[in-house]
């Protein structure tokens, strides 16, 4: 291969030679699924879970709505790569290439400042992890999902696949059969984790699909903020990211899940994220999608208990050849439940954004309230934005608000800013960052800064 895979204009567009310990063959069949399970020395129930899910995957059709997925070729993807032999818990012990990659995305600094524990996923295996001692003392578990299957089988078995069954959709089935890596978080009753738990991860092999699996359980009255930031290098062929994130919010508990995602422009990012929220529980998804070729992602809250609250704040940015099909799902099952969706999308250089939202108020969910606000900003005539709001209200005594705006970046605003000495590119960046501000200010500072930088980078046209 020659150089074209490397594109240094792209901020995180680098890749490095790697030493793989094990690399499964391209394509998928029962043998590969079983081999992954064997490789990971999993208990029988998990092997069976995977094989059953694979059966469902084969049966399921591709989604016939949303973004164009026709170019995904499941036979051209590696489903498992294990880069090093064993887990390490110190930076110095990480392989040099991996350390360099992480240095480029700045993990060590971030860690020094903020991190309680980092679960950094490199390829499909978590290779680095340092859990703060205090976390363990409080009984909080924060570890690699694969390790959790072995160390905490009772909890994992009880909840794994309980919120998102393999049969939910084709990509959830795929993830269920070949998942690898991801985080497991368990917060015991009444424990409030003060600092955000953070996991960085990145895809770093051509034609390699990443299928991490995250499970978060917060017991009664507990609290945790989980943050995932993703950056990925550029590759010439398409890669697939199909993650599953399941969250269980018990009575009176609260979970916030923040994503700042910047996949490279060839990644299909098809993620199923869902939470089950019990009485008085609060679930907040903050979801920022900048990169990828195609994203389909609709974080959802199943509001099962009285007064449960769900919130999705999302930002989607689509540039040239990108389609962000993102939104949210809110299902009200109990009385006095409330949900809020705030979506901000930006399209530029022929990019396309779609807001797709589903709100259901089931019979019996009396006195519930629903608030949906979706704003689209279109930067030029070649770009496109669509809104697909779907509301199924089966109860009368409820309060529903829906607002939608579409805005073009006006010449007048640009002239106003230029009269202050700010050039067009800077002005656009400022206005776009202002547009997303209501959501961006909900993100931890370091990620908000990163998001701001990524947006300015996109605006200056130095990317892609």
């Amino acid at each position, binding site marked *: 291969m020659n150089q074209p895979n490397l594109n240094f204009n792209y901020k995180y567009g680098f890749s490095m030679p790697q030493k793989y310990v094990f690399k499964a063959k391209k394509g998928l069949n029962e043998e590969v699924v079983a081999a992954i399970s064997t490789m990971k020395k999993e208990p029988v129930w998990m092997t069976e879970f995977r094989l059953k899910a694979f059966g469902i995957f084969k049966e399921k059709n591709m989604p016939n709505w949303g973004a164009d997925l026709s170019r995904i070729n499941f036979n051209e993807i590696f489903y498992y790569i294990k880069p090093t032999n064993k887990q390490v818990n110190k930076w110095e012990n990480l392989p040099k290439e991996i350390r360099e990659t992480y240095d480029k995305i700045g993990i060590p600094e971030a860690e020094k400042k903020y991190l309680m524990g980092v679960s950094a996923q490199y390829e499909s295996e978590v290779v680095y992890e340092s859990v703060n001692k205090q976390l363990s003392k409080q009984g909080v578990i924060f570890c690699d999902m694969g390790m959790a299957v072995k160390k905490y089988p009772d909890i994992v078995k009880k909840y794994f696949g309980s919120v998102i069954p393999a049969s939910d959709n084709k990509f959830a089935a795929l993830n269920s059969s070949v998942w690898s890596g991801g985080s497991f978080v368990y917060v015991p009753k009444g424990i409030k984790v003060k600092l955000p738990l953070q996991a960085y991860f990145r895809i770093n092999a051509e034609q390699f699909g990443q299928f991490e699996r995250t499970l978060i359980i917060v017991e009664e009255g507990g609290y945790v903020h989980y943050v995932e930031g993703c950056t990925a290098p550029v590759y010439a062929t398409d890669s697939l990211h199909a993650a599953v994130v399941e969250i269980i919010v018990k009575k009176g508990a609260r979970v916030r899940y923040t994503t700042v995602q910047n996949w490279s422009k060839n990644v299909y990012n098809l993620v199923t994220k869902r939470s089950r929220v019990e009485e008085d529980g609060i679930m907040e998804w903050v979801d920022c999608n900048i990169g990828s070729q195609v994203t389909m992602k609709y974080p959802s809250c199943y509001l099962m208990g009285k007064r449960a609250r769900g919130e999705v704040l999302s930002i989607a940015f689509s540039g040239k050849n990108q389609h962000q099909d993102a939104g949210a799902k809110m299902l009200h099952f109990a009385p006095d439940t409330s949900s809020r969706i705030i979506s901000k999308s930006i399209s530029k250089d022929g990019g396309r954004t779609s807001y797709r939202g589903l709100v259901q108020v089931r019979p019996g969910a009396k006195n519930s309230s629903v608030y949906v606000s979706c704003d689209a900003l279109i930067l030029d005539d070649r770009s496109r934005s669509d809104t697909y709001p779907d509301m199924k209200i089966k109860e009368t005594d409820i309060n529903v608000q829906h607002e939608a705006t579409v805005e073009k970046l006006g*010449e*007048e*605003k640009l*002239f*106003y*800013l*230029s*009269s*202050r*000495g*700010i*050039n*067009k590119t*800077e002005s656009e960046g*400022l*206005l776009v*960052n*202002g*547009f*997303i*501000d*209501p959501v961006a200010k909900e993100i931890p500072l370091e990620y908000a800064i990163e998001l701001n930088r990524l947006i300015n980078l996109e605006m200056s046209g130095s990317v892609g």
Partner: protein
Amino acid sequence: MQTQSFRPTYAGRNNLPRTEKMEDKTPLLILKNLSVNITGKKILKNIDFTFHKNKIYAIMGPNGSGKSTLAYTIMGNPSYVLEKNSSILYKNKEIQADLPDKRAKNGIFLSFQNPLSLSGVNVFQLLRLALSGIKDPLTVKEEIEKYARLLKIDLELTERSLNDGASGGEKKKLELLQAVVLNPDLQIFDEIDTGVDVDALKIIAGFIKQHKHNKTYIIITHYNRILKYIRPDVVMVMIDGKIAKTGDYRLAETIEKKGYEKLRTL
């Protein structure tokens, strides 16, 4: 990119003879044969005028006479088309091809008649970006707070989306706040007295007057009201895209009494 005026600090600076201002007749902005078309219609017609350094100019005229167009043209609104042979000379350089941000960096400022609301962008974010590499963010922040106090702008307003939900007077004060922090040599105020109550007008006029040192002002207005606070050196009256008359501050008083109709027939 000299936008800050140079002020000598040697002793005796304040004791310079009063004639200093009289002698200072350096041209700052020269409009030559300036004609401007907007969507095919000629709005400004062959304007010739020289604005001198450190003077205060008032431009008056009835609605639609081209006052705002002139202001936008000097600032460089990209949707305006200048006719061939039109020329704008600023600090001895032709600037008609320069984009507005370059003109601004060169020391031209326009206070908008209807300042735009910018959601999610506060005045600090705007000024920090505008002054990056010129003033450090901390100084910008301090200056905003200092001048906001002088202008009686609620500090909370400086932290909100610019002009979002602000009253007419607050918007104009925020324009002035930007002007003083950006510290440009040439400041054009397009109807800074419109939509402003008496108290706010007093503050605005007082502030402009107080900061006139080393500044050239162009005050566009319909009324003599503001000019009673800030006496202009030159009053220019525009009618139908042309300069109908120029004079000293007394011209503004005449207009107040007699209106524009008489000038139209001249």
